């Protein structure tokens, strides 16, 4: 994307001729709204981009309504293959709408993978699965790891391929929310963080750019080696404790977006992944300690 000037990207998007890769998916984006193109070209600068393509997994339209809401308290509408799954958003929230909308598309359609609601990062070819649970601080932890020697595979979707049990990358911008934004600004002053969007349905949101390496290597899968259930607890010591595989299987099955839909393939995939992985609970409050713990795990 960075090799094309913003004006060219805007022209392609206006004509419906902008195709770019996000992990295993090709997105065709139609939009006349330049600000969102400018933001996407920064966030996904190293992503593979095509002027034309014979195939796209998702044909996304991001357009302003043609009625009075085009000018009065302007809005923007997300549509996918002529369907409009959401109400319009305020125009200034076009980027969060695009990101959440694409998440929805993937969650609804990508059933050739067993999809976990988890972050996944990788080091030395081995993947660390961090299932998302309330209070886990997943995105903050994932952002920190991705900028400290671990490759970001995904912050939101853990894509497990049934045929191989490998984790496939889907390196999207990491949406930080509310208090996690200043935490990361302070911890990673050099991280590329986009503008803050206020009063979204999740509060204030800002997007962290995936590191260049994660975008350049987004067709390289990794073998899951660890499943770690994180829990952020202010003031706590860092504590990594083994979890029985039976418990890890149950928790991960419940954590999956589509375990039931994938049927036998999902069952077999999860069995193989848990069989091969070490499983832990993880309590933490300090990001440096957390990263050191996982770095130590990666050397064993």
């Amino acid at each position, binding site marked *: 994307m960075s090799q094309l000037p913003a004006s060219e990207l805007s022209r392609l998007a206006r004509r419906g001729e902008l195709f770019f890769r996000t992990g295993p998916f090709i997105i065709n984006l139609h939009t006349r709204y330049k600000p969102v193109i400018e933001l996407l070209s920064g966030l996904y600068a190293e992503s593979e981009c095509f002027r034309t393509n014979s195939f796209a997994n998702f044909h996304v339209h991001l357009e302003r309504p043609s009625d009075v809401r085009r000018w009065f308290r302007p809005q923007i509408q997300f549509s996918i293959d002529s369907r409009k799954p959401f109400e319009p958003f305020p125009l200034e929230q076009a980027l969060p709408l695009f990101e959440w909308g694409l998440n929805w598309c993937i969650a609804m359609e990508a059933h050739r993978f067993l999809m976990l609601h988890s972050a996944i990062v990788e080091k030395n070819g081995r993947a660390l699965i961090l299932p998302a649970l309330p209070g886990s601080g997943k995105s903050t932890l994932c952002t920190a790891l991705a900028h400290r020697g671990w490759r970001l595979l995904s912050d939101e979707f853990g894509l497990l391929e049934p045929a191989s049990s490998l984790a496939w990358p889907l390196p999207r911008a990491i949406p930080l929310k509310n208090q996690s934004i200043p935490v990361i600004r302070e911890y990673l002053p050099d991280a590329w963080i986009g503008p803050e969007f206020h009063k979204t349905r999740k509060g204030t949101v800002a997007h962290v750019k995936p590191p260049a390496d994660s975008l350049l290597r987004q067709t390289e899968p990794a073998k899951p080696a660890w499943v770690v259930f994180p829990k952020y607890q202010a003031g706590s010591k860092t504590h990594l404790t083994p979890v*029985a*595989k*039976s418990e890890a*299987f*149950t928790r991960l099955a419940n954590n999956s977006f589509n375990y*039931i839909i994938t049927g036998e393939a999902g069952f077999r995939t999860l*069995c193989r992944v848990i069989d091969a992985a070490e499983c832990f609970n993880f309590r933490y409050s300090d990001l440096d300690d957390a990263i050191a713990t996982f770095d130590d795990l990666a050397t064993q």
Partner: protein
Amino acid sequence: MLIGGRHLPGLIHRTSPAGALLFHDWESITSVYDRRTGQTHFLSALPTEILRALEHHRQSSGDLAQILSANYDIEDDSLWRNLIDDSLSQLRTLDLIEFSPTTR
């Protein structure tokens, strides 16, 4: 087998045919995937072994108690029979077995 507090004769069989259940053993629990329903069950050792023993043949609860007591090297006494009956109740609640009042 006790049903509603009464012992009833008859045979027990799995609701899913041979090959329809996939078993994966963990430390002390087995995940059982039922191809017939798409459901995943988590069972302890005894209900799991009952399902395995019913893979190809119907059995009475007495036969199951004898077979499994030999497998586990456990005395086939009233306590053992109660454990078998509890497991059969559990499996029946999960719709993994059915009771058939007919003979072989």
